[in-house]
């Protein structure tokens, strides 16, 4: 793709290159649903989060942390809170000004296993705030898994120090009535690497907006997403990667499978390459597989390129149905339809799931998805 083609893309989406950001909720009008940032979201289901509320629920979770990890629940005025976040919408600003506490995780060295945060939120309305900070040269993985039945407005700040490698997985396995709106603000120091993974399995409405700020040269962001949306699920991912310094890399791969008449996914991939970001390399890809009629996947990639001095920039987006020929081929080898479908879905998701890099989590995700496809694993015949 040539640069001029890429620049032309600007005209096709309405996302402005400059984001309005504020910590004051009143700086953001109450969304009505027509705004560019909200037009894909069923705003009626999130109304409660548009006005301040007195929380009726709070994260009642647990943290399973190996050596090298410290964690604490701190007051909102703690110096570690608010390092990165500049709210970009009303819900995030409200959550920032009303959260009464924050979970802070600090990672140093190379913890021997992933940090597991079990986000169990009791029914009700909740504000959440989390700070995950990888100190310079740390190599660590944090898996946050959300479950339960709640309506949550959340901010997550992810700070990756110079030379650190941090993997953060946000796994949503909510009850059918849960609503989860979350802004993830990521800042990368020089030569830092983040692997940011969003896994959406269940929940009525999950809308996660990761923002990446490249604050030092040579940083790298790998943004992965896996979703299996069924009936009554709306999964929305809104990415904004802001390349402002030279020689940084971003690589985005989001894949969704949709099954069910009212299954919805939305993927917005905004990448900005500012004039100073010479030597940027960025690629983003979103693919969606529709298993049934009625399911709908919206996909809007958008590149804003303000310098010609880049290594590469590209995007691809494709939404399609099952390939009948693939199913025919598998079935012609005796494999029943449901199992052929399972193989194709597994195959479709395999490349992104394999990149998560946390094997038991990968298996858990695949097993959960296969269970949704009506498959229970057979016991191996070892004799």
């Amino acid at each position: 793709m040539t640069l001029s083609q890429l620049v032309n893309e600007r005209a096709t989406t309405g996302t402005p290159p400059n984001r309005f950001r504020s910590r004051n909720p009143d700086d953001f009008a109450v969304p009505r649903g027509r705004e560019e940032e909200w037009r894909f979201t069923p705003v009626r289901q999130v109304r409660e989060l548009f006005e301040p509320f007195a929380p009726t629920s709070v994260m009642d979770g647990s943290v399973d942390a190996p050596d090298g990890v410290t964690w604490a629940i701190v007051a909102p005025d703690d110096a570690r809170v608010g390092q990165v976040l500049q709210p970009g919408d009303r819900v995030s600003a409200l959550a920032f000004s009303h959260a009464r506490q924050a979970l802070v995780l600090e990672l140093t060295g190379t913890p021997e296993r992933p940090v597991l945060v079990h986000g169990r939120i009791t029914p009700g309305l909740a504000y959440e705030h989390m700070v995950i900070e990888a100190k310079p040269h740390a190599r660590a993985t944090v898996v946050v898994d959300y479950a339960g039945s709640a309506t949550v407005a959340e901010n997550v700040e992810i700070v990756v120090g110079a030379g650190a490698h941090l993997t953060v997985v946000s796994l949503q396995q909510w009850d059918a009535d849960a609503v989860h709106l979350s802004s993830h603000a990521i800042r990368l120091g020089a030569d830092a690497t983040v692997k940011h993974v969003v896994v959406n399995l269940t929940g009525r409405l999950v809308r996660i907006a990761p923002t990446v700020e490249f604050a030092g040269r040579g940083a790298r962001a790998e943004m992965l997403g896996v979703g299996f949306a069924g009936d009554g699920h709306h999964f929305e991912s809104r990415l904004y990667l802001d390349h402002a310094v030279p020689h940084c890399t971003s690589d985005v791969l989001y894949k969704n499978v949709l099954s069910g008449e009212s299954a919805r996914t939305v993927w917005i991939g905004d990448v900005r390459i500012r004039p100073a970001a010479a030597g940027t390399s960025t690629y983003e890809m979103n693919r969606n597989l529709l298993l049934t009629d009625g399911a709908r996947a919206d996909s809007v990639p958008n590149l804003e390129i303000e310098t010609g001095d880049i290594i590469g920039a590209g995007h691809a987006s494709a939404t399609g149905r099952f390939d009948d020929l693939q199913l025919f081929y598998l079935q012609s080898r005796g494999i029943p339809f449901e199992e052929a479908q399972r193989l194709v879905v597994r195959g479709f998701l395999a490349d992104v799931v394999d990149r998560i890099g946390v094997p038991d989590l990968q298996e858990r995700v695949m097993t959960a998805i296969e269970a949704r496809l009506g498959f229970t694993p057979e016991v191996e015949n070892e004799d």
Partner: protein
Amino acid sequence: MSTLEIRDLHVTVGEGEETTEILKGVDLTVSSGQTHAIMGPNGSGKSTLAYSIAGHPKYTVVGGSVTLDGADVLAMTVDQRARAGLFLAMQYPVEVPGVSVSNFLRTAVTAVRGEAPKVRHWVKEVNEAMAVLEMDRAFAERSVNEGFSGGEKKRHEILQLELLKPRIAILDETDSGLDVDALRVVSEGVNRYMSTAALDGEGAPGMLLITHYTRILRYIRPDFVHVFFDGRIVESGGSDLADRLEAEGYARFGAAESAHSGVDGAPAHAV
């Protein structure tokens, strides 16, 4: 002892105004231990016959019957046909991204045999079959047919033939696109399957071999050769018929000369 019986088979493609009849009354009986070769010009409907037997969704059977030992094949789903003992080595095998060959083979064999193969035996069985076909073990970890060369795809089809052990196998141009060595390896694979299946007490499988060239028939001797033309079998004979077709082409059945020399892009006398 198995018998595949095709009676007065009529098949169309397309819908509504676009409907075209491709098969116009095919009659053929393939029994255990027999090798039938089908030769015919491009577009005469050979693959349509093969795909219709396998149940490809693109084709609509509008008349006639296909039975396997009396059971109505056309009433079966695609996977039931395979489990009933039919196998089609496809002219254009399909790529299935993200599904490894080993996982695919294991799933298919489990489905066809009705139980998961025992792990120890299975590894040995696959390795042996791959070795005979001179397939690198690395293929087991690759995605099904993805990025395979034409010849590699054909070897992979025959690997499945060996593992799935059908009672009736249809090979659609398995020889096309194979170099001389690959043709020998693949043909030997087929012959090995035909003879070992017989030794297993199952009785030799029946085989329907679709080809444009006699070169594969030097390895796999057909008992019968059929000429396919314009959607039906127009002549049947012994293996000498194949030589005659290769020398003369299909002109005497009404084909233009170009249909003869245009086969697979190579003139018949060059092979």
